């Protein structure tokens, strides 16, 4: 997984609450056995008509959001199905950072495992950021090391992140190798509790 320390990017505002993972990537695209290539299916039913042509009125299809890498959304982002295809699609499309007032638990974990920085910010700040990104070409910087999000117009806010998750993201670690350093403990547990 790619480490993420500091990221500056164009903001895309998605002013909706309870965006579920069925919206992020519909089920017909979960049949592939690879991890890559899901970006083309991101928000598929919102971005495309039945015949595969683009829906011009869906904001992500507007040229002004080309190259976006920071998604700002409403509360409970990523609810529903546990499909990791959702963060795979977001990551493959180019999103590195997601900001929302709250996230669904499984989705949040899945983001961390894929090097996507998911940050919870107060609702008022999210509304403010959404408004800015709807009205202008708006860039933000997410600095994970110092736990701050800022723009170059004077907006700056700090955020909470769990130390362990921060360490994993900053180093781009695969947590299986970390866990395997505790293999003796797993063996001990198994011999005591569950039999070998």
């Amino acid at each position, binding site marked *: 997984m790619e480490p993420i320390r500091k990221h500056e990017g164009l903001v895309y505002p998605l002013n909706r609450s309870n965006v579920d993972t*069925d919206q992020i990537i519909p089920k017909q695209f979960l*049949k592939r056995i690879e991890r890559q290539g899901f970006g083309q299916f991101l928000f598929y039913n919102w971005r495309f008509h*039945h015949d595969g042509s683009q829906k011009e009125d869906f904001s992500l299809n507007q040229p002004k959001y080309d190259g976006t890498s920071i998604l700002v959304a409403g509360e409970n982002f990523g*609810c529903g199905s546990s*499909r990791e295809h959702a963060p795979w699609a977001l990551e493959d499309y180019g999103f590195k950072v997601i900001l929302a007032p709250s996230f669904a638990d499984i989705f949040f974990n*899945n983001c961390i495992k894929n090097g996507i920085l998911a940050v919870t910010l107060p609702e008022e700040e999210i509304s403010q950021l959404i408004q800015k990104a709807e009205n202008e070409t708006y860039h933000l910087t997410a600095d994970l090391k110092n736990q701050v999000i800022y723009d170059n117009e004077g907006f700056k806010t700090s955020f909470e992140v769990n130390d362990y998750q921060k360490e994993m993201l900053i180093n781009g670690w695969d947590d299986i190798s970390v*866990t395997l350093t505790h293999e003796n*403990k797993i063996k001990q547990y198994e011999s005591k509790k569950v039999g070998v």
Partner: protein
Amino acid sequence: MTQPKTIVEKIWDQHVVHLEKGKPDLLYIDLHLIHEVTSPQAFEGLRMNDRSVRRPERTYATMDHNVPTRERHIIKDAVSKKQMETLKQNCDEFGIPLADIDHPDQGIVHVIGPELGLTQPGKTIVCGDSHTSTHGAFGALAFGIGTSEVEHVLATQTLWQAPPKTLNVKVNGELGTGVTAKDLILAVIGKYGVRFGTGYVIEYTGDAIRSLTMEQRMTVCNMSIEAGARAGLISPDETTVEYLRGKRHVPEGQAFDEARDEWLALASDEGAVYDHTLEIDASEIEPQVTWGTNPGMCLPVSASVPDPAEATTDNKRAEIEHALNYMDLQPNQPISDIAIEHVFIGSCTNSRISDLQKAAEIVRGKTVHSSVTAIVVPGSQSVKQQAEAEGLDVVFKQAGFEWRDAGCSMCLAMNDDVIPPGERCASTSNRNFEGRQGTDARTHLVSPEMAAAAAITGHFTDVRQFTNALQH
């Protein structure tokens, strides 16, 4: 005297492998269930890193999401077929037991785990599927995980987990006649919304929960994730013990008696402290129907569709307008006036034998409305077999239902069972998200009894009146 504990604290304490300040706990996983959709990339990760499956005998696989429910050997979609073949190859390579499409134990992963007795009180159970919360009905700590975590569990039989907060959902009183476990959980989510459980493990307590059968408890725990909670569970009691007695993977004889004592001791202690408690009165619950695009958008069948003009905030108004637009419903339209074109009885929420028995009682001797296509998809081949032994298949078929093989089917429409754009379905599943049952399809979540009644009348009908009308 020792501090009273919740069942979650007891299970947690028994499974911690490694504790370290500033880190989540490393938790041992007793049972890992896998299916074809969320596992291929995990196995590929193992191969790329030259890792093996630590405990294949604690892993159990089935095929459910993609499987056709008729002519099951004709898998038209080559990508689906490849995904199923890949699961078989992975299970062969790593020595994992698999109930594939030809196996008599095949079925929806959350139906067969309990059926085979793999699901037991006190176990930590995970699966790359958010409805893993179902297994909590047995007093297991069971939750859905992503594919990276599937790989982690395959390789290490553990997961890093921060101890969860606990939420006591206390359901007092008694459910009325014709009101089901499905109505109970829909009413809870309708009242408190789709995110009150985020960050929590829910424990369902109270008289109304105690009087539920195991299959009804599974329906309740299944939908914990629709309230945002990764896990929902119910302390084991004699109902739990009796369900498990004689199941294939459950100990027998003296070992069963010992297990029984351990299971019952897991129940939350009197005076145990929860981070939060919500209470609801079961006697006030009516049969429920969802009207919108998440399970919290839910009302009694006697109610009318909400009017966005009456919303208390701009955000809520926008949310209701968006949902009504997608669902093609009018503000203040009585729910009982909504006509449907499809009925789906199935899914890990409501496809067990008792669900089919209850639905069959409603349709017996009746005919499916001429504008409705109705299907019954048993949760497992074993449920199917039992239903056929009881003649339920004949009841459904004579009424005009299609009788299918086991699978997830129209709950998420990954196989051929898809609702066409713009059409409306009364579904016993768990999610009414946009596009869930097909692009631009409209889903209304209901109990099996309500789905059966709607199939006959062609629109939502209070099953209590329907049953009364039959009796008079």
